[in-house]
């Protein structure tokens, strides 16, 4: 077997040709012990998928558990289960297999895909961030998803809670494309609340996983999933992340793969700004929203500054002016000369108008109403 560094990129010609090899790919994707990197090296050593399975069965590759799995699993049944849920196997070397994945040193040997063909969903940008994000971060991710997808740039993410789901939702809301890369089988709903979102994406975009149907989400699946998210996209956007956030691993992948890295800044006081702010200091491109992103990627141009909100009465206008950062009602009362109940009443009217929101007993402007809000006009 050649040393890993000597392994050529891509897959050997004819590796997955023929039904026997396709079934072998389905089987190889179920091996937990034979890491993609080792499998990739083995592929170049042996030449065909069936040969790789034979090596596993003979104990020359993979773990004991892999050997048992290879002996006990009926590959045809895996493919049947895949088809039964309306999905398909995309093996390496096939036309739908995204060539971008071959940039990886550990490309998946195949993907289970549900939804539209992957080659039809391009160009793509990855949007990732904290699962436990702030309301602001969620709004930023939604705007990025909507703006990008609306301008024809598909959103790739991991369908996790928080930023991931918000960017997918934004893309769907913008009537654009989106791809979710899952850390479990395509028939497993994770996180549990996302059933509806996943169903919508399977229809409007695509769900992708390197794990066979029925695979439960395991902690180590998610970092592995991230490499596919990044590889599928031409750029990576980090929205919110704490110090030592998982998003930083995605950034490592992006740098290895030569993808551009963008970050959306947040308040320096917020712990969830740690990752993006660090990235910006280290050279990532700062973006304020989808308009910046589209311009930098060359998919959009001109900006116009969002008009100040209209239709406000005098009190609403005065109060709105002083909602600066995350403020207490009494601070607003003090700087406007209103009583606290009066200030609260005006703030609630602004909240009903979609201009501010209350978070943890404080009020802040919503994204659309912030002075930094820029509207992208299509190129």
């Amino acid at each position: 077997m050649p040393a890993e560094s000597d392994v050529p990129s891509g897959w050997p010609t004819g590796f997955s040709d023929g039904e026997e090899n396709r079934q072998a790919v389905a089987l190889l994707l179920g091996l937990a012990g034979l890491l993609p990197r080792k499998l990739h090296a083995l592929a170049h050593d042996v030449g065909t998928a069936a040969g790789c399975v034979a090596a596993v069965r003979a104990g020359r590759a993979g773990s004991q558990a892999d050997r048992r799995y290879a002996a006990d699993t009926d590959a045809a049944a895996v493919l049947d289960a895949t088809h039964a849920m309306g999905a398909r196997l995309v093996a390496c070397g096939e036309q739908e297999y995204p060539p971008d994945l071959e940039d990886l040193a550990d490309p998946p040997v195949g993907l289970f895909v549900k939804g539209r063909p992957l080659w039809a969903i391009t160009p793509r940008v990855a949007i990732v961030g904290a699962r436990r994000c702030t309301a602001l971060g969620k709004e930023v991710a939604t705007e990025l998803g909507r703006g990008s997808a609306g301008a024809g740039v598909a959103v790739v993410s991991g369908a996790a809670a928080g930023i991931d789901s918000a960017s997918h939702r934004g893309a769907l809301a913008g009537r654009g494309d989106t791809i979710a890369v899952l850390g479990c089988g395509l028939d497993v709903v994770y996180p549990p609340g996302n059933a509806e979102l996943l169903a919508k994406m399977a229809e409007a975009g695509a769900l992708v996983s390197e794990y066979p149907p029925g695979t439960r989400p395991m902690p180590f699946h998610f970092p592995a999933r991230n490499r596919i998210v990044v590889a599928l996209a031409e750029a990576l956007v980090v929205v919110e992340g704490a110090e030592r956030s998982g998003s930083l691993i995605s950034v490592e992948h992006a740098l290895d793969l030569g993808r551009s890295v963008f970050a959306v800044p947040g308040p320096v006081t917020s712990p969830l700004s740690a990752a993006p702010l660090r990235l910006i200091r280290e050279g990532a491109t700062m973006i304020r929203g989808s308009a910046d992103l589209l311009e930098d990627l060359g998919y959009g141009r001109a900006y116009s500054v969002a008009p100040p909100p209209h239709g406000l009465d005098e009190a609403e206008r005065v109060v709105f002016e002083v909602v600066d950062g995350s403020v207490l009602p009494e601070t607003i009362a003090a700087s406007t000369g209103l009583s606290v109940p009066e200030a609260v009443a005006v703030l609630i009217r602004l909240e009903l108008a979609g201009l501010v929101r209350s978070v943890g007993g404080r009020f802040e402007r919503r994204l659309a109403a912030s002075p930094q809000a820029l509207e992208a006009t299509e190129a």
Partner: protein
Amino acid sequence: MPIASFAAMYGRVIGVTVLGVGGHAVTVEAHVGRGLPSLILTGLPGAAVQDARDRIRPAVEASGFEWPLRRVVVNLSPGTLRKEGPGLDLPVATVVLAATAQVPSKLLDRYVLAGELSLKGELISTPGILSVAIAAARGGMEGVIVPSANAAEASQIEGLRVVAAASLAEVAGFLRGTWEPPVVEAEDGPAEEGSAVDFSEIRGQAQARRALEVAAAGGHNVLMIGSPGAGKTMLARRLATILPPLSREEALEATQLHSVAGLLSGRGMLTSRPFRSPHHSLSVAGLLGGGSGFLRPGEVSLAHRGVLFLDELTEFRRDALEGLRQPLEDGRVVITRALGSIEFPSRFTLVAAANPCPCGFAGDSKRVCRCGDARREQYSGKMSGPLLDRVDIRLTIPRLTKHELLGEDPGESSASIRERVCAARERQRRRYEGIGVACNAHLPGPFARRITVMSSEAQSLLAQAVETFALTGRGFDRAIKVSQTIADLCGAQVVEAEYLAEALSYRGTAPQDEGLADAG
């Protein structure tokens, strides 16, 4: 004095047993007749009364009297009523003295006797004496003979002579006319004493202070969500100081409950509204009342006419929280036992506090929440249900920065807030006169919708809120009731849009738009 040895002797004394908070007259008879020396109690004595059997003889002998070395039968009637509590020690001891002619019987049908005896014959502080005094007055008795430690509470009842005795010997002296009891001064009603805490001590948290004023004015229950250390307990403790002062009836009701629970410790009458803050490890019986044998009022009843503060709401036992539904709706707790059911009043303002999530930092601007989704899910599940339906005001308490704390002037004093609260309550009292509702919080939802007069601007705002904030039917009713209270605080007849808008700020927003969503 040796006991005459002729055949049978008889005596009769009147005592009171306390069931729940009510006192019931008990006729205590003694028959001293032939047979081996023994004391037999008949007439459904409860465990504590049965206990008295072995305590009485030492107490009598230690007081310098002779115990009849004969068969003594003491009967408690009516026989269908279970007699509970230690207050029957004194009647049982006295009736034996009366039956053996060691004390004269002439005062015994005009006085009610109550009190627990020590082995040395001292009368010691006894729970429920206020209820005894009320029962005695109702029964047309001339006076009560009670332990001196409980004299103050007994003296609250007008037209009742209180004989405060420190021992069985003094009681005997009074009955013989050889000892004059000290004069017990009737205390004035609920004279307002300076409370230990005051609203002026709170810096910052202006919205929360205002919300508590609204809660006090309309009798609304409050839920406070906030990170640890944000000041939830401090705020809750001060709510009792801005509720209207106790009326004499209210004070009497509350005092009676505290008396039954043995918590009065010598005071005559509660002078300020009770504030109860039980720990979350409390049992169901501890919260709602009950226990085996002697039924003790629970925390919900000790908070009667005051504030019940449940800190760390989600840590309380689920069955205990479920049990709060009845007191919150009916203002009373009914405990049913094999021998019938008893009732404790429990009309309180609930203040519940909870962290926004198990770790406490969801929605915090400075810290990151570290809770898993499943834990948060489970946590917010605990906050839902019938309990929260009864909570009209839901607040998020922000953690203040040092700058925000220092920038604030000290707040208004409790006394001046209370003036506005009282005025608002008075408006409600007049409006709801004759329909049995005391305040806005107790209005049934459909009724509140019908009688609340809203400006057209307020109506359209409400329609918009239903849409934008996804208000549920209950959330809708809560907004109406709270806006009515704000109008009452402002002295307005009509609910204006700004009152409604403020009421909507108390609808409870979930940290990060999820988790603790409206439970209604």
